[in-house]
């Protein structure tokens, strides 16, 4: 009898990709399991955005394998994108719509009609004050906009969350709130891949941290089961050695 295992949420194996003559990814391999938060750290040009592009099916890799819940994002982009929600670095939604309307609109585009209650529930979950739900986004702070984007991702109820520099530009309190949101996602068994420069934020929330340098994962560290989750000093040294400032 053959045992069928659930495929990992994200599986990238020996991925190579170049932009023109410039190689960016040179054999990237990483796996993110369901319910795991994976922080991908790397400096500028290390290949973080290219990794996200490959997962989103925006680029066709030269070689290697990319799978999202077992689906190839290039061969089956619609099916793969139905499994994941992407939160860009600078969250930009429609300023002339309210939070509710924005989420309703993007859910409709994603053909994920969850109903008004699901939208309200997601907004409540991300901690956006209820009196702001029907206000236009033009008056929102960056943190509030990000909450709307996360609420959209939660409302879509997908197994994979891709976050591009999620804490960039957030104040410390907003970062804490954001981490709480990721805890919620983890509790829902959502796999989170966050691409970031922010070592401290990664240390606070990630289950695993991968150092991306020269187009591949140079080193991976897993959160400790007891005590401090990561040795921040050691990580900082590691990060600095990779030529990146934390």
């Amino acid at each position: 009898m053959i045992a069928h295992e659930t495929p990992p949420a994200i599986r990238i194996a020996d991925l190579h990709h170049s932009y023109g003559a410039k190689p960016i990814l040179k054999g990237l391999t990483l796996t993110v399991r369901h319910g795991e938060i994976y922080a991908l750290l790397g400096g500028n040009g290390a290949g973080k955005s290219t990794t996200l592009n490959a997962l989103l099916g925006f680029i066709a890799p030269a070689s290697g394998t990319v799978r999202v819940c077992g689906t190839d994002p290039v061969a089956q982009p619609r099916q793969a994108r139905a499994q994941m929600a992407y939160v860009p670095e600078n969250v930009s939604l429609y300023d002339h719509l309210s939070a509710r309307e924005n989420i309703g609109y993007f859910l409709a585009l994603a053909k994920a009609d969850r109903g008004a209650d699901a939208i309200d529930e997601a907004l409540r979950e991300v901690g956006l004050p209820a009196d702001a739900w029907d206000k236009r986004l033009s008056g929102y702070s960056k943190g509030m906009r990000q909450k709307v984007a996360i609420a959209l991702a939660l409302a879509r109820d997908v197994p994979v969350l891709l976050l591009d520099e999620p804490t960039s530009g957030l104040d410390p309190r907003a970062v804490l709130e954001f981490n709480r949101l990721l805890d919620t996602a983890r509790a829902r068994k959502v796999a989170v891949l966050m691409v970031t420069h922010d070592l401290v934020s990664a240390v606070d929330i990630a289950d695993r941290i991968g150092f991306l340098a020269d187009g591949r994962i140079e080193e991976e560290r897993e959160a400790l089961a007891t005590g401090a989750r990561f040795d921040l000093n050691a990580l900082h040294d590691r990060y600095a050695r990779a030529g990146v400032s934390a």
Partner: protein
Amino acid sequence: MNPLGAETRLFLRSGRNIAALLLLLVLSATAVWAGIAEVANQRAAIERVAQEQARDLAAVEDANAGPQGDAGYVAYYAFMLTQDPPPPLAFAAIGQRDLQPYLLRVRALGLEAQLYDSEAYNPELALPGVFDWAFVLIYLLPLVVIALGHDLVTGERETGRLRLLLSLPGDGLWRRRAVLRYAAVLAALVIPLLVGGAIMAAPAGGIAVLILTAVLYCAFWFGLTLLAGAAMRTSATAATAMVGCWIMLTLVLPTLGNAAIARAVPVAKGIDLTLAQREVVHRGWDIPKEQTFERFFVSHPEWRGREEFEGRFHWKWYYAMHQVGDEAVAEDAAEYRASLERREDLTRALGFVLPSVGSMNVVHRIADTDIEGQLAYRDSIAAFHARLRAFYYPYLFADRPFTRADFAMIPRYSVRTAQGSLGVWPLAILALAALLMIGLGARRVSRLGGEGSARTG
């Protein structure tokens, strides 16, 4: 909510979109209203002149009728009204009707001296053309399309939403957005036309052709806008490129094309024919009458032997002079007409290359307000004038008295039937241009999947 419903809501929540659509709706409605007003003015003018004409003819009858009435006097004083009432679709495409006469009173004298005897118009006022629905379609519609469509893609890229939109599993986003804008623009343009058509009781077939032209012309501009919007990196460059296209396709190239046509096919002025005809008539006073009659008998041999008269003057000699005058310039008149037709042919050919000119040709042809319509009116005047001459000549050459009873028999002008026709080839070419642009635009947009990879590293 379904994606189209969501898209519609998003579209209608944008103040800019609503403002652009309202502007187009107001412009289209104003143009239709202006067209209806112009048609009403022309009809009122025809009605007014027809009443005056009846009074005028009655006065001529009172002055000249009698047992021994002279047909020569009657033919000289009795102007007969010809008219070209606005065709049913003129309210939408006035065309040449604001420049060319739609009323002309003619008598049995030389035709060429009367044919171009219309009111002079101010050329500076005529230069911008008339503000009608066709003007809104050809010149203003593309600007609204550009306003609504130039940043369809670039706007999303500039605000940073493009990657998020492309990361969603749904498909057909750009198609929905383009079709929604297209439908909204067409509705704003066409609704006033439908209302105007109902008010004017215009034929449904003609209105359908106008709408079909709008559908294709609008599709051409949407395709072009989609192409530029997807190919350019920023909204500013896309808008600049599209406004450049608008200037070239609707203003510069048609103007250059018309200038080239005018240069290639010089057309004499109608007034030159008038002067040439008058010169022949005036010379007739100074040459022996026999010479005039001999030339007259070439076309009217049936009156040979009836030319003798006593005294120095007789109407038959006078009308023969006018007939000869017309015949003397017949070749020039034919050449003049052929030149106008040649220009019209070349303008149609230009329409195969320039969608703006092609669309203009289609709407004016179906409305019968183009040069072809004007020439048809002139032809009907010429035919009527020939009937007038044929009516009077037996009185003049057979020395028959013109009695009161004969007044009722003077031929009356029959209004020509509007002969608007469907420009199948121009429409087919326009459809091809629209399909080409839509295809190119859609192809460019379909490549946007890779656009999400604009960020590298």
